[in-house]
């Protein structure tokens, strides 16, 4: 089955599902979510089947490749393929999609066409999420990169909270600004490439001999778009608004998956296509990343809206991810890419449990809670575990990745690593203060009785918590996929790890 177009199949399947859902007659509109769940579930099964075809020992950068001419006049191909990193991202998206659909089950209580369209949009988004990670043609990547904005825009703008319009437009403006700058870079890059009918392929654009200034300008164009997407300080301000106004399921896909396109892009495009410029920009990027770590954490401590708080923790976590990427060591790279996976599950768990609490309390304000451990003990426990993953408690997945990032960064940039390590103290503060304010204290007097989590909610949370625990104690399966991708990227950049200053006598590492 090696010639089977795995990636196209798993990318298109949700789109087909979206078309079916969209075309449902009004009488069957209440079936929309069942179909959506089924389609995303099937996509997950096929994704796992595709992953089993992947050989992590392979020499080639991309596997499961497909390539067809698309717009040969200017070098655009329909080219799909994955390395370990892209595969891990696609698996994460495919796992989170059905979880989010299940979490969004009652998001549109009025039903009918609005509900139908809601689930159709989520499936469309899944298609683009898979496509953007699988594209191995720079232009095709760009198309997916921009196309993703459309379903997200409607998911926020039409289905979000009170200030949804403001949040949606802000999200769109930031993203379009980033995208337009990147487009200039994309076009310019083609001029320096070999040209031809497949001149936009990543493989054709790797290792080019580009004049220094041009390379730096193009790097900046790409990096700007990815920094907005990631999001890094100071272009992060769209995220808290989008995250709090969006429905929780949308927020999860936005922060957990879409934002990873930013850091994914830094690895795949900034480092691989512009290695010299990446090294040139590293000092600035490291500083920005460290600022993001501390700034996001301090802002999270000061929030009173639980969804905004979680969004700011992500700003901090993305700071770690970027830090590890630009440390340019195998350890830092492995840490960052693993963090991209772990953050997806960790943030999903935090957002979704918080949303279940918000739905019960009818408020996102942290001071409106208090004592809820005595009201919803199950949800409180899940919230604590998700929060502990957020503060990178050893034994939960984020710890391994965060520590690897710090370790890898310390190999080259000691001061930056030490300052970023202070982030672990701030992380304890923002998580534990939130937990204390919401969950501890005397049992509140509630007007109506509140029930603890139901079966559907348990089904949403259980796989996420299982992922946090399993990846915390046994991250090897993910690392085995990520390590080759990281060392390949670093070999394109042309850097190798610093050797230990004092090797152990005769003891092999």
């Amino acid at each position, binding site marked *: 089955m090696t010639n089977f177009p795995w990636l196209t199949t798993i990318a298109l399947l949700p789109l087909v599902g979206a078309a079916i859902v969209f075309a449902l007659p009004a009488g069957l509109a209440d079936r929309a979510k069942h179909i959506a769940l089924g389609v995303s579930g099937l996509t997950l099964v096929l994704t796992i089947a595709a992953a089993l075809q992947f050989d992590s020992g392979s020499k080639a950068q991309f596997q499961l490749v497909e390539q067809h001419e698309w717009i040969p006049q200017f070098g655009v191909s329909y080219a799909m393929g994955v390395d370990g990193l892209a595969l891990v991202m696609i698996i994460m998206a495919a796992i989170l999609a059905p979880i989010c659909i299940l979490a969004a089950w009652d998001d549109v209580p009025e039903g009918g066409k609005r509900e139908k369209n809601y689930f159709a949009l989520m499936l469309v988004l899944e298609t683009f999420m898979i496509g953007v990670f699988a594209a191995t043609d720079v232009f095709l990547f760009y198309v997916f990169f921009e196309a993703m904005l459309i379903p997200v825009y409607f998911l926020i703008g039409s289905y979000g909270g009170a200030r949804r319009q403001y949040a949606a437009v802000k999200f769109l403006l930031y993203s379009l600004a980033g995208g337009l700058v990147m487009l200039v870079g994309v076009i310019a890059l083609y001029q320096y490439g070999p040209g031809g009918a497949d001149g936009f392929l990543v493989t054709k654009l790797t290792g080019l001999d580009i004049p220094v200034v041009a390379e730096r300008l193009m790097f900046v164009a790409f990096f700007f778009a990815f920094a907005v997407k990631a999001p890094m300080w*100071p272009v992060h301000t769209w995220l808290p608004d989008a995250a709090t106004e969006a429905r929780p399921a949308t927020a999860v896909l936005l922060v957990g998956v879409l934002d990873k396109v930013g850091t994914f892009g830094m690895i795949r495009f900034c480092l691989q296509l512009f290695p010299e410029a990446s090294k040139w920009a590293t000092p600035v990027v490291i500083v920005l990343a460290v600022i993001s770590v501390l700034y996001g954490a301090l802002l999270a401590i000061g929030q009173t809206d639980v969804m905004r708080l979680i969004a700011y923790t992500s700003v901090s976590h993305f700071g770690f991810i970027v830090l590890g990427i630009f440390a340019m060591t*195998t*350890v830092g790279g492995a840490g960052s890419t693993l963090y991209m996976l772990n953050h997806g599950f960790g943030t999903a768990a935090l957002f979704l449990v918080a949303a279940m609490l918000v739905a019960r309390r009818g408020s996102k304000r942290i001071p409106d809670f208090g004592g809820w451990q005595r009201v919803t003990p199950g949800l409180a426990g899940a919230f604590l575990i998700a929060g502990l993953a957020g503060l990178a408690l050893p034994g939960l997945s984020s710890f391994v990745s965060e520590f690897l990032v710090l*370790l890898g960064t310390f190999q080259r940039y000691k001061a930056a690593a030490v300052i970023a390590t202070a982030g*672990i*103290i701030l992380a304890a503060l923002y998580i534990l203060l939130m937990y*204390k304010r919401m969950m501890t204290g005397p049992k509140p007097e509630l007007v109506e009785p509140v029930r603890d989590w139901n079966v559907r909610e348990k089904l949403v949370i259980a796989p996420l918590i299982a992922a946090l625990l399993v990846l915390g104690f046994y991250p090897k399966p993910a*690392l085995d996929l990520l390590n080759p991708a990281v060392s390949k990227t670093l070999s394109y950049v042309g850097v190798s790890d610093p050797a230990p200053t004092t*090797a152990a006598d005769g003891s092999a590492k």
Partner: protein
Amino acid sequence: MTSLSTLAAAEGSAAAAATGITSAAWLLVALPLLGAAVLLLGGRATDKWGPLFATAMSWAAFVVGFLVWISMIGRPADGRAMHLTLFEWIPAGSFNLQAGMLVDQLSVAFVLLVTFVGSLIHVYSIGYMEHDPDKRRFFAYLNLFVASMLLLVLADSYLLLYVGWEGVGLASYLLIGFWNHNPAYATAANKAFVVNRVGDFGLSVAIMIMFVTFGTVTFAGVSQAAGGASEATLTAIGLMLLLGACGKSAQFPLQSWLGDAMAGPTPVSALIHAATMVTAGVYLVVRSGFIFNAAPDAQLVVVIVGAITLLFGAIVGCAKDDIKKALAASTMSQIGYMMLAAGLGPVGAAFAIFHLITHGFFKAGMFLGAGSVMHGMNDQVDMRRFGALSGAMKITWVTFGLGWLAILGVPPFSGFWSKDKIIEAAFVGEGWRPWVFGLTAMIGAGITAFYMSRLFFMTFHGKKRWTDDVHPHESPLVMTVPMMVLAVGSALLGLVLSIGGTFTHWLEPVVGSHGEESPVLAVPVITVLTLLLVAGGIGLAWMRYWRDEVPVVAPTGSLATQAARRDLYQDDVNEGVFMRPGIHLTRSLVFADNRGVDGAVGGMAAMVGGTSSRLRRVQNGFARSYALTMLAGVVAIFALVWVIQ
């Protein structure tokens, strides 16, 4: 698998691959972990038998530990340490770490202490927590603690130790905040975790320096290569490790959380905040002897920290009227002794662990005694409302009394054998150090005698100062039997372990041996002087708290008393230096982020998008006009591309 095990053998070259019962050492962690998982996942269904199950799991771990120890005794001294590879944990680029266990003389000593005292406290808790509606959760957390603590002491690398290190921190957080419907208790839990995180910052940085310097973070790898590193590097590692140890062991300047941690149920205070977890910092320093021994400056700082803390805790202990807080201050002080000894290098390290073990027995016993007193006195903790309890609670009085004699260092009780040796070791050396540290340790012993006698007399002797509603009664056997067992340990363990230097010889292969260096004062002189100071402390306490009337409301006291009552202003300092500026910083950043950063970027966006009025028109709320805009945008982009082409 063969390649894995050879790799492991290379890493743990000092220790042979585990055989026999030692290869089942993973059960030590797995059994209590299973207990915690069953109770937490099983929910209400396990309410009935959960506490018993958790207790059984803890005892099962003790049995495994005991068998491992027996098999270790059977081997010659140089073959006792064994290494057990568990699985490939983190293969990440040039960092490749196995999860493995190092079962040697030091870790086995801890395993026996943790599982034995831990299991006794499980039994005690069956009685103490009988009427608590959430007791299943309590036992789950206790099991989680035992599992994490055993992982901490059995880990074969600093990173795996870190997992256990934060695991015990989590258990401590959960148990301090066990009654978190009281907001003050929830705050105490947070404080403990956050202060510990400051320490963890140090431990993290230490591990990073190790990796960059040696390329490995296993004990075996680092100890082999440590000799090749510069003293400056080793000093840096040592100081960072010490920061971690200060957080976990409540040593100056990270001591502020321990007093508040008494918010947890008393069995927790006995197990976690007296006998085991808080001593993990001492374990870390002793385990890292290969680093500290090559970094004399770092060692000196360890000794100074220990000396400051032992006095700090002792002074605070003199002013506390809350029986648990007085015991907590005493714990801090006693760990100060251990830290001081650990910083002395091989001459003191074995005694640090020795004192840690005896302290584990007598302090846990006294905490359980305090719990028994509270049980009989409607959960009151104010010693000014106790007095004359020796008659009403005979078993508690006798068992507590043995603990009291032990901590005082009265021969032949346990503390004498361990603490006196630390004081002797502190007098070893040249120049000013032996005098300063030796005298500090000796004076500390006198103060200890005063505040512990004060505590003992105020609680059990003198006149009744009870409130009207209390009817003191002895606790049930399920609580008093563990107290009796610990009291036997308080009385005899020190003597048994020091006959012929058994315990120090046992640890020698791990902590290293030292030549016969004699203290600057003759040993009998030190012993006699110390005992005189102890007698003085007891006498002073007897006059003021047994013979004289103890007022039920604390008198204002001198400035020194007021300072000690407020823990020498530790919280005021932390609030003034860190908390309030931090709150201001956070608030102004939130303000700036909403106005400043957003405003600047928003302004740019407005410029890009044209005028702000046009922006407002765009936000008309009609989906179709957005779709149209998007479509126009996409068309424009494609047009641009075509033009350029």
